[in-house]
């Protein structure tokens, strides 16, 4: 009886612990995969990563400054397939959409005028998928060039 209780408690405790472990894995994924890919751009040190489910999307707002060369990197865990992202300015103009660039994971750019931009990230559901949607880590990272 007591053993059953301990087993039940262990199961509940593991359920509670799993999200933390998943977050830790997300951090490792961001560091080991996405950050490394920013090279030769230097990562700015900010951490933006979350577990997303296929079909889910996220938006990130950031101010970018003129006279700086930037790289935006959007990386998804391998089980999520391609990650779609687009960059939109404050007038709603789409400046870049990786869907038309073979789902390229990064975009290099510079600005003549500092401005706020929005990065819209979407984890597409593969066509014809019938299984439960997959969940995986998606990281958005920024690098700048140090000349």
């Amino acid at each position: 009886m007591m053993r059953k209780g301990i087993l039940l408690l262990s199961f509940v405790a593991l359920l509670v612990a799993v999200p933390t472990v998943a977050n830790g894995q997300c951090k490792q994924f961001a560091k080991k995969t996405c950050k490394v890919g920013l090279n030769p751009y230097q990562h700015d040190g900010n951490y933006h990563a979350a577990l997303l489910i296929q079909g889910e999307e996220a938006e990130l707002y950031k101010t970018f400054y003129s006279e700086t060369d930037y790289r935006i990197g959007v990386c998804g865990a391998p089980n999520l397939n391609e990650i779609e992202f687009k960059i939109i300015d404050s007038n709603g103009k789409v400046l870049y959409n990786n869907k038309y660039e073979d789902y390229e994971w990064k975009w290099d750019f510079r600005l003549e005028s500092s401005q706020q931009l929005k990065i819209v990230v979407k984890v597409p559901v593969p066509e014809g998928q019938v299984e439960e949607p997959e969940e995986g880590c998606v990281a958005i990272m920024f690098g700048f060039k140090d000349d």
Partner: protein
Amino acid sequence: MNKHLLDSGKVLILLTLILALSIAGCNSGAKKDQAANSSEEEFVSTVDEDMQENFQTAKRIFYSLPSPIETAKILQNAGATYDEGLLNPLENNTGYITNLKMALNLGIYTTDLSYASLFDQTQVTLNYIEVAKNMADGLNILDAINETTIQRLEDNINNREIIIDIISETLLNSSSYLKERGLESTATIILVGGWVEGLYIATQLVEGESIKDNKIVERIVEQKLSVDFMITLLEEAKDDPDAQKILEDVKSLKSIFDKIEIKLGANTVVTDPETNVTTLKSSSSHNLTQKVFDELVVKVNELRTSYIS
């Protein structure tokens, strides 16, 4: 034998239980804070309908604030010079005993560290990573900056690329550690501290100079574009008194930035086929006056003094 196996099984189950609860325990306080704060720092359940386009329904929304290293880089790109006298003195670090002061000064010292490293000030860089470590340790941000970090910095002190990589790694470690534990408001306060330090260095570097055609002044004006993001993030931490105090400070800065109007022209997208680098071509203008600039200098100085004292 069977009894022995049964005991081993119990020990295994208990170990699993302890391990699982330990891992979860690291997060439970965070979860409570998160609930109290009603949302995470960067996960805000609002949707910007104007820019929604073809994408559907509920989205996670993040705001990215300028990091200390980015702030220092923007300053350098604008032609800033190095002035060691503008840094927060090292000896101040022992006086920061509250979480608020340690968070603000982790940001401040990291901006100082970044500024010094971009100008190849090797000894200063080493000194400032030590005090940044003290702040991170005080906040219990485990292993954000450890002895290995410092050793790696010492071993590569003449390699700026690696130094910047180390600083960015420490920022990422701090930020991810705090966010994973639901302490997003502390991560925001660190960034606000670093941002105010960048504004302080910038305003001091140009004080007494003409504000016309001055690139550093341009970058100062453009900080208006990040103020609303800071306010949004701090407002989410309703039950964190430290965040609410800093919110008032940022609002006081916003009231001055609001006197400046920035006009931005339409973007034209031009991509270089050889380098694959895109340039967003556009023009911008603002109506900064000397009076408003002076107000900004005074307010930034006042806030920075209160943060480092």
